[in-house]
């Protein structure tokens, strides 16, 4: 069954607007954040409008209702990523928070001086800096697997860097600046062969392909709700049961305890141990609606549609003289990073914006990727389920306009 794009477009109110002198909005900044569908907006609205209450603590009707809905999302996430148990789903404020949690809890407890953490050259800053902080704290060493000119991890080098010193491996499933889909299973298996623990940053994966933690067999996996058509300020950390059980909490407070006395406090069990304080209840409920939405469409269908968008976009942009692509792997999602002649991406972004086309211009929080290709920044068009061939035609025309201005 293929996607009904008109129907999908009508589900996203933001698409129904004209900007900058009456230009229809062409939203191609989905890797930064996706638009939100009506069911998500309505779920969040319903909570604030009629069902506002705190969770896990009230005996009254609204509190129980909110708790039920919040916990329903946990069940939905469990099914969505094929996790064994819903207790393995920890809600966080996003991918960044989840990675920091793992670094400060697992990392600070179980890594020691001289231990190595292996990442890749294409990581988002949120999968670099938390490990640098940890290295400063405990004296472990950060290693970086290089990437080739197509923007792929050089597998021989990655494998060679895995040694008995490697205690932790953390890598991005899909690169946000290059679009590369890493061979996650192969990378995880190899890391396990040397006894390392593996975290997969699936922030750019979950809205574009199916992610199955049982199949991957990674110890941790993270993603953000807002890149999955869900609310900002929501995210997920998946962890293997025995690891979550032995990890200490990073934040203390309400909800994460069973019993508090001044002499001794006993922590709650996972996932609550890691969810101190009042969480983003409305957001998590909205995330549930977002997961329902994509699950109904089907990740296989979404992936197939977006591949076809990628092919169409790559072909039509490739015709523009002076365009250069960054991230040319055969295995990639619908993300196109590009430069035109020697026009700075900021100038590209401004000219496109005036034509109603929203892209991102910058280093995309992956400065080492820019350094690898010796460029200051790129323009990035990233596609999603509601984008069309017309959007891509508008993009191509807008890029021609850039060339006109900068003859």
């Amino acid at each position, binding site marked *: 069954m293929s996607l009904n794009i008109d129907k999908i477009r009508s589900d996203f109110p933001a698409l129904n607007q004209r900007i900058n002198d009456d230009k229809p909005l062409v939203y191609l900044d989905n890797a930064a954040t996706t638009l939100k569908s009506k069911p998500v907006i309505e779920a969040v609205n319903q909570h604030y409008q009629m069902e506002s209450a705190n969770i896990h603590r009230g005996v009254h009707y609204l509190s129980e209702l909110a708790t039920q809905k919040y916990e329903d999302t946990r069940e939905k996430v469990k099914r969505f990523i094929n996790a064994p148990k819903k207790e393995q789903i920890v809600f966080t404020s996003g991918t960044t928070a989840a990675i920091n949690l793992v670094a400060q809890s697992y990392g600070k407890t179980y890594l020691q001086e001289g231990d190595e953490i292996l990442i890749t050259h294409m990581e988002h800053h949120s999968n670099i800096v938390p490990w640098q902080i940890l290295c400063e704290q405990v004296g472990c060493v950060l290693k970086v697997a290089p990437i080739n000119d197509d923007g792929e991890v050089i597998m021989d080098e990655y494998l060679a860097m895995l040694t008995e010193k490697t205690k932790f491996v953390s890598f991005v499933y899909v690169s946000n600046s290059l679009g590369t889909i890493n061979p996650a299973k192969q990378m995880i298996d190899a890391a396990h062969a040397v006894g390392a623990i593996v975290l997969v940053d699936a922030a750019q994966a979950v809205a574009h392909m199916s992610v199955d933690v049982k199949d991957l067999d990674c110890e941790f996996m993270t993603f953000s709700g807002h890149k999955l058509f869900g609310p900002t300020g929501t995210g997920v950390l998946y962890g293997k049961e025995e690891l979550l059980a032995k990890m200490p909490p990073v934040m203390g407070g309400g909800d994460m305890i069973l019993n508090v006395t001044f002499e001794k406090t006993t922590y709650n069990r996972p996932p609550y141990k890691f969810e101190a304080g009042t969480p983003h209840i409305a957001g998590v409920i909205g995330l549930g609606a977002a997961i329902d939405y994509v699950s109904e469409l089907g990740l296989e269908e979404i992936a197939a549609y977006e591949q076809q968008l990628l092919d169409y976009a790559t072909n039509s942009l490739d015709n523009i003289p002076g365009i250069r692509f960054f991230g040319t792997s055969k295995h990639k999602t619908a993300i196109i990073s590009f430069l035109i002649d020697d026009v700075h991406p900021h100038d590209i972004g401004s000219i496109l914006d005036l034509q109603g086309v929203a892209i991102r211009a910058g280093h995309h929080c992956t400065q080492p990727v820019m350094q690898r290709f010796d460029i200051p920044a790129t323009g990035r068009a990233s596609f999603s389920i509601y984008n069309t061939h017309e959007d891509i035609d508008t993009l191509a025309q807008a890029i021609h306009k850039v060339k006109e*201005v900068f003859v």
Partner: protein
Amino acid sequence: MNISDELYQQVILDHNKKPRNFGKLEGATHFAEGFNPLCGDHYNVYLTVDDSGIIENAMFEGSGCAISKASASMMTQAIKGQTIEFAKSLFDQFHKLVTGETVTDDGNKLLGKLQVFAGVCRYPARVKCAALSWHTLTGAIDESQDTVTTE
């Protein structure tokens, strides 16, 4: 609204393509480095200032978008041969211009050619681009050791 009329005027495009006073100034008396961490624009500004406070020479090097490069190029032209005081009051006027504050007739006279940057105030994301080299100039004049950033 036409972007090439408003933001990318011919003068700006010309300075972007052929930046004036571009390169390292040997024997500079004043220097500062300017950086916009958000987009990676990066410029060094060099001055030679004589004993009486006159800017004998001004040069810049680095990379960034057309707006930031043209702004740096035209800035060096505008301050060359002028006093430090003049450069400072010129920046005051320039800042007003690109942030959309009212500029008086006298202010506009002072700005001269720099008035081509008037369109920038309608593009909030680009104000920092236009102002980066000027903030760096201030850093060079004050001889602050730290890198100047726009954040």
